[in-house]
Each structure stands twice: as structure tokens, then as C-alpha cells.
């Protein structure tokens, strides 16, 4: 009896240590290979990455890409206070004046001739709408390369190994030190791509945290209930014979 109890405790310590060190290892290097905290059945968003990603979106992507399903008030669910979100909104100039919390993210309406007729897609739902999800978007942002000698690009296009057909109208969007992070994370182009990908993942599935939280509780409860139901059924039916 004592033995098995200590066995369980020792087992719990090993598991706890494994989880602690595993997450420490992830925190040390989440970029190579790219790792996202929101993946997997226990996944939840990394609030710091979302805030950094919003900064990248706001200072780069928002110049051409709309996010028509999002309001400035939604920024409160990436950990900003109502005052911070309102301050961000008030810095955005809409035609009717400064934006408020209840305004939709500003639609930049870029000139249709700007990218040779290519229209920058709306980014509200981009991760749900692309096969490959997180890794595809991260690849698209980082996999620009020099044009191979045997390929002639279309006018105003760039060579990108992640994009289907390899010829994309979007210029390479991210450079080192393009933004200055408040939390002093080093803003390499890869870090920016990883952060903005995390932000876009949140934009596509803003309910992921609560979805996984409810899901875990519901599944555990139903497993318990199923065991109880099976035991009850067997007990009741045993009395028939």
C-alpha cells in the first residue's frame, strides 16, 4: 500500500518535471522549428505573442489588408485594457473622424492598380481559409527567395516557395527591426512572422481558449458519466436473470 502510494507520488513528480522542462524548452526556442502554443488539444494563445503580432499587423499589414470581422473592442481579448484598446482606436483616422471601440478595423481600400490587379485578401479568417493553417501562413511570410534562373516572373511578382505557383504579388512584407516590441523581444523578421501568424490565428478563432477549456471539462465529465452509466446498466441487468 505504502509502496504504491509513493509510486504514484514519484510518478506525479516525474510528469510535473517533464511538463515544466518541456515548456521551458519551448520558450527558449519557438522559432526553429516554428512552434505555436495554440496548437494541439490543450492549446491556448500566448497573450504576449498576440500583442506583438497585433503591433506587426497594425504597422505593416493594415496598410493593405482589411480585417472586416474584427472590431477595436475585440482587442480586449488579447489582454489589452479598454483604455489601451480605445487609445489604439483613437489613433486610427476614419473618414468620419477617429475610430472608436465599436468600429470595424479600418479597411485600407488599396488602389486596385497597386499590385497589378491582385487584391490583398481580408485577413479576418485567413487561417481557417487556407489548407496548412499556421505553418502555411508562417511559410508564406518567410519563404521569399531569389528567382531561379529558369523562371521568368510575371510583372510585379515575387518568388515565394510557400505560395501555390510560387509567384505572389505581395512584396516581402517583413524585415528585421521593422517594429519595436514593448517587451524587448528581438524583432527579427522570423520573430515578427511568428507573432503575426499567432495574431492571425487568434483573429480566425477568437474562441479557441474557451473552446478548449469547456471541451476538456465536458469530455472529462462525460467520460465519468459514461463509466457510471455502464456500471449502473450492468447492475440493473444482472437482476433480470
Amino acid at each position, binding site marked *: 500500500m505504502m509502496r504504491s502510494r509513493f509510486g504514484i507520488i514519484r510518478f506525479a513528480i516525474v510528469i510535473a518535471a517533464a511538463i515544466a522542462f518541456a515548456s521551458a524548452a519551448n520558450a527558449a526556442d519557438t522559432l526553429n522549428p516554428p512552434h505555436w502554443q495554440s496548437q494541439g488539444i490543450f492549446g491556448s494563445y500566448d497573450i504576449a505573442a498576440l500583442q506583438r503580432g497585433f503591433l506587426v499587423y497594425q504597422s505593416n499589414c493594415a496598410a493593405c489588408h482589411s480585417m472586416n470581422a474584427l472590431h477595436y473592442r475585440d482587442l480586449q481579448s488579447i489582454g489589452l485594457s479598454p483604455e489601451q484598446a480605445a487609445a489604439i482606436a483613437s489613433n486610427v483616422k476614419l473618414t468620419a473622424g477617429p475610430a472608436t471601440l465599436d468600429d470595424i478595423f479600418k479597411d485600407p481600400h488599396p488602389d486596385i492598380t497597386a499590385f497589378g490587379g491582385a487584391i490583398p485578401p481580408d485577413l479576418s479568417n485567413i487561417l481557417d481559409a487556407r489548407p496548412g493553417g499556421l505553418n502555411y501562413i508562417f511559410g508564406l511570410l518567410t519563404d521569399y527567395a531569389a528567382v531561379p534562373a529558369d523562371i521568368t516572373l510575371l510583372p510585379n511578382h515575387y518568388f515565394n516557395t510557400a505560395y501555390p505557383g510560387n509567384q505572389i504579388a505581395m512584396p516581402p512584407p517583413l524585415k528585421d527591426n521593422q517594429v519595436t516590441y514593448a517587451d524587448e523581444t528581438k524583432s527579427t523578421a522570423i520573430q515578427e512572422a511568428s507573432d503575426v501568424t499567432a495574431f492571425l490565428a487568434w483573429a480566425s478563432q477568437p474562441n479557441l481558449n474557451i473552446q478548449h477549456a469547456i471541451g476538456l471539462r465536458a469530455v472529462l465529465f462525460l467520460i465519468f458519466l459514461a463509466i457510471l452509466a455502464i456500471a449502473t446498466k450492468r447492475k440493473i441487468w444482472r437482476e*433480470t436473470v
Partner: protein
Amino acid sequence: MSSNITKPWIDTRLPFITAWRAHFLTPNLAPDAPYLGTLPSLITTALVFMALSGFVLSVHYDPAHPFTSLQFIDRNVNNGWLIHAFHETGTTMIFGAVYLTLYRIMVTRAYRAPGEVVWLLTVAQFCLLLLVGYLGYLLDGGAVSYWSLAGVTTAAGNLGGAPGAISNWFFGGPDGPGTLARIAMFHTLLALAIFGIVALHYLAKRAVTAPPPARGQVSFHPYYTAQYFVAFVVFALIFAVLVFFAPHFGENTLNGAPGGPLVVPATVSPPWYLLSITNVSHAFPGMWGGIFGVIARLAVLFALPWLDRSKPDATPGALYRFLVMLLALDILALGLAAAATPSMLTSILAIVFTAWYFLHFLVFTPLVTAMEAK
């Protein structure tokens, strides 16, 4: 009047409670029941659940802006994402249960006399569900749904004669701003019609179920209720896993992009439960071929009780059971080939698997059952 005194007050005014109690407590049921026998009840419960979640969705859904209104439900309606996921995953659960029911009846050959009408109603329910499921998928408003609707309405516009008149009445002409409003209406109407089939199925099933042996009969409560409870909890468990951890199970990812003339998906593949039907329709050439394919695909199911040449009381043979298992694999393969990126190989495989499907029903079923009947 004096006999009324012994009855409860409510029963003299609403003669329901005593009958209900008798139904649940009289020991008149078989003392052993397979868990799969609970499938019709699970399907009915899931249908009620779909009607309720569909009602909530319809309050906020706007057929003029399908994609945007669903995004609004997901993001701005309290727990809207959950109701949306319930409705989406409920479809998967219903079709899973219906496919399992069809397979079970085919393996056990319960479709033979006197079970023909039960089988016909099961297949009719399956057909209606396919139609309602397809219309629901069109209502999604994503890029794949958009192009599927465009393809279907264009094809319908090219039909002549009576089929053309029917499809024109159904879709109201080419795909336009009002089309989805009609489809939302039909989606609701036909979904409610399924409940009518459920009622008929219940009556037909009760009429042909053989009375259990006189010895050892049990009452519905607590014996069957305990068993149904297990079935419901396990069903709910699978449902919860899908809702919370795979809410878009079996769907084409590109349907996450808003539908529009500028976004054309390379593969217009429907949700998983429609895939095998789609592929049969692709295997026949031309527009009429596709229509013929779908009708023939479902007609052989209706004809099954008469394609089976064995005597009603003959024991099912092992070879036939093996063939039914092969058929299930064949339908799975048809679906996988339809979901894959189109290529020469997938179209050849579609023809091979479709050929096997019809061979099974039109050649092997009569042949093997007649052989085994000897």
C-alpha cells in the same frame, strides 16, 4: 362514472399518464437488446437538437450576407460559436448514425419481409437527410458552397422538360441574391418533414417487431432506460470531442474563405457525408449522367429487399456478409477519391468504385443470396 373515482384526477381529463406509465413499466420487452438498437432513438434526439440549434442560428442568419452573418454569430453573438459548432457537428453525428444503421440492416438482412417498409423509410430518411445536409452546406456561404450553388443552378437552368420546371421552381432561376433565402426555407421545411418519416418509421417498426419469448420479459424502465442512458452518454461524448476539438471535421478547408466570384477553389468537394454520392454522379458522363448517377445510387438501396433472392427465414450467409463489408469499404474509398485533388487516377478510381457499387447490388446480391438460399 363510478370507475373514474379510482383513476387519478388528471387521467379522467387527459387520458395519457396511465398509458404512459403502463408503457414504461409493463414487462413486455425482450430480456436482451443490442446497443445498436438504440440508433433510431439517437438519430431522433439528434434531429430535435438540430432543430433547436438551427432555430437559434436562423434568428441571426442573413441569406443576403451568409458568410458575414455566420461570422457575426461566431464572434459577436453570446455563445454563438458554440451553437454554430453544435449544428455543424450535429450533422456529422446524425450521418454517422444513419450510415451505421444502413450498414447494420444490410449485414443482418433485416430489410427482408416483413421489414421492407422499415427499410424503405430508413432509406427515405437518408435521402431527405442528404438533401437537407446539402442545402445546409450551401447556406454556409464559403467559397466552396458558393461555387457548388453556382454549378447546381447553372446545370438546373440547362435542364429541359419536367426536371427543368421542377428545378426552376426550386431554385427560382440562376444563382442570385434571393437564392439562399429560398434554400434556407427549403432547408427548414424538409428538415421538419424528416420528423414525419421518423413517426412513420416508429409505427412501421412496431408493427413488424416479433413479440419476445414469453419467459424473462423485462419492462422498459429501468432496464431499457439504463441501456439508453449508456448509449446517449457515449453519443454525447463523441459529439463533445468533435465539437470542441474538431469543429470542422470532414469539411473542405477552403469553405473558410468567403464565397465570391474572385475566389475559385480547385476542388469543389462537399462535406464528408455527401462525398460518395458526389463521386457516383461524376462517374457518369454529361449533365443527365450525373442526375442519373445520383438517382440510381439511391434507387438500388430502395430496391434491396427485392434484389435479395433468399427466403425470409433463411440464415444470413458468410459470403454475403463479407460482400456487405466490402461495399462499406467501397463507399469509403469513393468518398476519399472525391475529396482528393482531381487527377487522372482519381477519376479512374471513381469509375472502378462506382462500378463495384452497382455490381454489388445488381449482380452479386441476387446471385449470392440465390446461391445461399439453396
